[in-house]
């Protein structure tokens, strides 16, 4: 099957330009104008030739030398040539129709090869996207955070919390080495993320799945607008948690995995592409918990249910 497709693609390498040219001539305004112009030039050339023949007197084997031709005679010659041209066209209609049919068969054949090619490319793309989503849709830890300090200030209920975030990178050792430390006013800590929800999509085969990208931290006392951004993305703007090792990614090359991953991430900003991919909703989701000094919490992405935050001891 693959060999047949390959042969067809090779064949299309020279059929396609011909098909494109035929389509250009018969379906574009410019092409049709070119055809009409060619016909008009042919008719004019035929008229001039007929007039020249008449002038040189070579017509009908009788020799005249530079005979003057009246306007009426010129008009007659012109009409005769035009008439003959159209009669010629009509008399050769079966040949012309056959030629046209052959031309459009070439177009149809090329178009069919393109469709099959496009179908196979799309199938491959969908398969790759499915593999990428399958790898991203497992239940996994996003981050662990620990309260390393908490200071109560006057007035009552005014508290500063210092947190240490440890992110996970599943392409490396499982834990991203550099933790992020921050101090924020308040003690109810909101872990904010963007969620893309797939449903009834060709890619997810009708399963309800989410992709989540952590964004920032805010608290009961700090608005989201004034929250602290999480250093969660690598230099290519890919979240660390979406990194996968080559051994782990089965069914797709690591290069294709990275490229498809970027394609999925681009849907966040491209509503049309997101809709085409079957994404039903894009929204923010912040899970939060009241913390005390020394407490440890883990943020998990559930396979089907978005973000969940739990005390680390609970695991």
């Amino acid at each position: 099957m693959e060999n047949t497709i390959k042969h067809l693609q090779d064949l299309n390498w020279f059929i396609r330009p011909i098909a494109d040219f035929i389509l250009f001539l018969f379906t574009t305004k410019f092409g049709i104008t070119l055809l009409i112009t060619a016909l008009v030039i042919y008719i004019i050339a035929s008229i001039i030739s007929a007039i020249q023949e008449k002038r040189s007197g070579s017509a009908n084997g009788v020799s005249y030398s530079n005979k003057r031709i009246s306007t009426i005679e010129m008009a007659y010659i012109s009409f005769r040539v035009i008439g003959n041209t159209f009669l010629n066209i009509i008399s050769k209609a079966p040949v012309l129709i056959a030629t046209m049919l052959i031309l459009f068969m070439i177009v149809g054949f090329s178009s069919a090869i393109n469709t099959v090619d496009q179908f196979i490319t799309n199938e491959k793309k969908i398969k790759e996207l499915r593999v990428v989503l399958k790898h991203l849709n497992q239940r996994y830890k996003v981050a662990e955070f620990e309260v390393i300090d908490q200071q109560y200030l006057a007035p009552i209920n005014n508290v500063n919390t210092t947190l240490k975030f440890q992110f996970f990178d599943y392409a490396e050792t499982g834990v991203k080495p550099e933790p992020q430390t921050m101090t924020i006013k308040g003690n109810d800590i909101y872990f904010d993320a963007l969620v893309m929800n797939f449903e009834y999509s060709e890619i997810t085969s009708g399963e309800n799945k989410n992709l989540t990208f952590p964004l920032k931290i805010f608290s009961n006392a700090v608005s989201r607008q004034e929250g602290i951004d999480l250093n969660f993305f690598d230099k290519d703007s890919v979240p660390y948690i979406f990194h996968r090792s080559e051994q782990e990614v089965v069914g797709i090359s690591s290069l294709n995995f990275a490229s498809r991953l970027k394609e999925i991430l681009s849907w966040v900003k491209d509503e049309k592409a997101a809709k085409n991919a079957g994404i039903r909703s894009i929204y923010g989701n912040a899970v939060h918990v009241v913390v005390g000094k020394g407490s440890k919490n883990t943020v998990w992405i559930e396979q089907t249910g978005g973000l969940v935050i739990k005390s680390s001891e609970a695991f």
Partner: protein
Amino acid sequence: MKKFILILLTIVALSAGVGYYFLKYQKKTIQKLENQISFLKETYTPLKFKILDRDSNKLKVAVKFMDMDSNEIQKSDFTLEGHELMFDFFTIQIKDRYLSFPTKIFTDMMPPQEGVDLTQYYNVDGFPQIFNDKEITPEAKVLLTELFSKIRENKTQDLKQNFGNCVHDIQKFKSFREDYIYSILAHTKGGLEIIEN
């Protein structure tokens, strides 16, 4: 002196006893609720909303609270300063299900503690009406009422496996559109979702 120590010890013992009883009672409540949550659907819609008006720094939104049979409980309009609308929920894990109670509405420009309390809008005689369902048992109703009272009084510290869950739009990516109806779906297997109707 001996008398004083004896009184002190009695007070300590009594407090410990009351505390122990209280914790045991709470555990029992949760356990009972675990056996009563079969009425919960996989997904329910506690609220729907519509942005009525939006200017540079203000949002006007209509929020409709719904029970599990999709009956309207109450509708209310809110005008808030901000660009992004945020709905906060209290989520508690009971057995393998999550129950989510809407608690606050606020915006990206408001610290959550300044948000508007939402519990009053679906509080019907102490029962969280969003969980009202044809199949709910009277026992589950009582237990949910107890749980709801703790949430309203902010006495949730002793409840295990609970967390806050807030959903919102993000102006940078996609804002809620004016005059479109949005539903917040609560998935009992975890997570909240906003969908456009």
